[in-house]
């Protein structure tokens, strides 16, 4: 009972944050709504007994990604006249909803025909110890590939911000 109340509150925060994120005109307000979405997502992870994912989401997504986005938005200081001119028209919203409704209704149909329930999990599920053991025994190759990906992202962002080119 308590679980469903917490889930409803988190879902409300997630949907309100996501809708306000795509509807604000100023980028700073969108980023702050995105912060709300990320914190509610970590709450969903905590509800699913994933204590390490909850920590990683708070540390990486809230602490690094959203903070970096807010810092970039405030440091490049976009003027009001440089924002996109035209308003979002009602016609384009209707057209986009028609465009994405087939795939979303297909996913909804697939979920409603699923036959799964939550089993009772033991106490060590999702803790740092058990996740670390699985990560360094069965998932060692993807872990190494992700470290190469992070290195290439580091080099790529430095190279992109160094070059001078006229568009």
């Amino acid at each position, binding site marked *: 009972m308590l679980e469903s109340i917490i889930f409803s509150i988190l879902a409300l925060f997630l949907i309100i944050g996501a809708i306000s994120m795509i509807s604000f005109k100023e980028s700073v307000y969108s980023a702050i709504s*995105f912060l709300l979405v990320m914190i509610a997502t970590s709450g969903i992870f905590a509800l699913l007994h994933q204590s390490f994912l909850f920590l990683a989401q708070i540390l990486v997504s809230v602490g690094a990604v959203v903070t970096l986005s807010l810092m970039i938005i405030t440091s490049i200081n976009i003027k009001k006249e440089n924002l*996109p001119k035209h308003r979002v028209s009602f016609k384009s919203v209707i057209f986009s909803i028609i465009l994405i409704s087939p795939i979303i209704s297909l996913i909804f149909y697939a979920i409603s025909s699923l036959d799964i329930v939550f089993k009772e999990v033991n106490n060590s599920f999702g803790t740092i110890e058990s996740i670390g053991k699985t990560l360094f025994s069965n998932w060692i190759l993807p872990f190494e590939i992700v470290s190469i990906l992070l290195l290439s*992202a580091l080099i790529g962002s430095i190279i992109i911000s160094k070059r001078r080119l006229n568009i």
Partner: protein
Amino acid sequence: MTPHYFLYLATILFAIGLLGITIRKNLFVIYLSIELMLSSVNIILATFSKASNSQDGSIMALLMIAVIASEASIFLAIIVYLYKSTKTIDTETFTNLRNEESI
């Protein structure tokens, strides 16, 4: 609580992210929508991980968080570069690949 509620919630978030990509012209909002879609996939992975009582989904979500972080660094570098060279973040401006004479 059944897993279906979590999966429906993640699907709604994915739909909102897709809608944000298609209707907005602001580069920052497109970037935040991509992040939202990746996070909704993370919710689905964590749900299936708990439903199948196995750690593999959690590990995949953990690796996805690393992918999200690297995507954020690259995308923000591209946004800063585009804003420095054109003084706008309107996606209608960046039409180099759409011009027929440049093909």
